[in-house]
């Protein structure tokens, strides 16, 4: 009887449950709770949370295995069919779609098809603050090196400060794939916490008068130099020229920036390519998001996730995020010292990516201090340039450390 019972126990997964697996279930449930009930980035946290759950089903073998296990003795990778046969469908998806760096640029194409460069073209000067807000990436990189991370690991950790999930994932795949799970979780969790982090940092660094800087009044006093007579033509030409020049300047950023601008181009052309834009921003992006979320979640097995490095990533990611917001705000404050036309520092706070949530949060914050101060379109300018800025920062890190 005992033998039968122990046989049954071994057949089920109960015998393999340990505290690490239980802890990972708790983490999975927290992610699912945040996604489903708190509505924090549900499109990502739900697949990631479920991926964590799948990866930690005892005996199911659904977690992503280390890449040494999918290598042949001669150092080449197994075929995808062998990977699927030996390690299951999630490993097949991971090594086909994530390890190759395929999905983040595909998601960027969808983001491009949903992005409107109009606000940035109307307020081109504000694009500079998208650069100031990348400072968190590089400062945390230095901090992470000081506490013992290797340079590629530190770069992958710092890129969380770009507040751009696909960019963080793409950089980590290229530089430190063993940290993909915790970095993706940190990046998306902090993006979900933008409504908390931006007000927190802004209130620490800004005065009441700065919150009240009225962007439209400033525009009336100091009108922009360039009038755009043919917005559609400009919107079509802009991604083509920009894509070409940025890709030549930073080739390693081309997969992200190129796909972002391609997505934007097919949107801006209008009805003739509307079907492509709809596909890029709809079915393709949604499919990519499902596979990305599930496979990233499945990298988080208890052996990989439960260690001190993960805690370092969670803390470092938060710092990177806060420093990027602070960098944007301080960039505007410095600019205001030398310019007659003042800019609301909240515009700088949105220089990190997280489009359009960061802009919405900054707009609501400005409206709390002055109900007529709508700064959304100004924030969108630095916000969109922040997407380009973080992709370029990723390109620099990959080309030097990849």
């Amino acid at each position, binding site marked *: 009887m005992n033998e039968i019972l122990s046989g049954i126990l071994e057949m089920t997964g109960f015998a393999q449950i340990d505290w690490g697996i239980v802890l990972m279930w708790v983490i999975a449930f927290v992610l699912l709770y945040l996604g489903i009930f708190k509505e924090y980035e549900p499109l990502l946290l739900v697949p990631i949370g479920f991926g964590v759950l799948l990866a930690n089903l005892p005996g199911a073998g659904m977690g992503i295995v280390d890449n040494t296990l999918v290598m042949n003795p001669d150092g080449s990778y197994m075929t995808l069919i062998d990977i699927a046969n030996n390690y299951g469908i999630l490993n097949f998806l991971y090594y086909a779609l994530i390890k190759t760096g395929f999905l983040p640029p595909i998601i960027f194409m969808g983001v491009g098809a949903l992005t409107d460069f109009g606000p940035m073209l109307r307020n081109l000067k504000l694009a500079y603050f998208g650069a100031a807000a990348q400072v968190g990436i590089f400062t945390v990189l*230095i901090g992470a090196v000081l506490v013992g991370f290797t340079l590629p690991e530190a770069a992958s950790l710092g890129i969380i400060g770009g507040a751009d999930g696909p960019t963080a994932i793409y950089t980590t795949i290229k530089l430190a794939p063993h940290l993909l799970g915790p970095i993706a979780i940190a990046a998306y969790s902090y993006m979900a916490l933008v409504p908390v982090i931006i007000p927190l940092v802004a209130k620490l660094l800004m005065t009441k008068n700065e919150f009240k800087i009225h962007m439209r009044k400033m525009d009336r006093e100091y009108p922009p130099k360039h009038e755009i007579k043919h917005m559609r033509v400009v919107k079509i*030409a802009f991604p083509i020229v920009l894509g070409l020049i940025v890709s030549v*300047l930073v080739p390693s950023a081309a997969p992200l920036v190129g796909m972002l601008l391609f997505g934007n181009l097919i949107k801006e052309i209008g009805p003739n390519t509307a079907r492509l834009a709809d596909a890029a921003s709809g079915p393709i992006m949604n499919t990519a998001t499902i596979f990305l979320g599930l496979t990233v979640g499945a990298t988080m097995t208890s052996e990989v996730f439960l260690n001190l490095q993960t805690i370092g990533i969670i803390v470092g990611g938060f710092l990177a995020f806060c420093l990027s917001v602070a960098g944007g705000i301080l960039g505007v404050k410095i600019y205001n010292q030398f310019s007659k036309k003042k800019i609301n520092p909240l515009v700088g706070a949105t220089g990190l990516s997280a489009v359009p949530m960061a802009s919405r949060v900054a707009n609501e914050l400005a409206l709390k201090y002055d109900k007529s101060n709508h700064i959304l379109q100004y924030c969108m300018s630095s916000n969109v340039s922040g997407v380009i800025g973080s992709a370029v920062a990723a390109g*620099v890190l990959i080309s030097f450390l990849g």
Partner: protein
Amino acid sequence: MDSLNQALGLLLIGMITVFIVLWLVTVIGTSVIELSNRFYHPKAKDNDAPPTGGVDKEKMAVIVAAVNVLTNGKGVVDSVEKK
């Protein structure tokens, strides 16, 4: 120490590159705007506009846009009549 020096170098190179690229964004944006303002002259559409039959211009624009979307740009509004 070597890693720290390299990290400081990356801070410098990374921030400068990002600034240069976003400077290029402003330069390209401004140039495209200037060039389109100067050299792009769309065909005058007033003569081609369909008879509006008393419908005001804003409503007409909405109708044309709706037809454009529904027909994927292939449909043309010939005329609009008020009953």
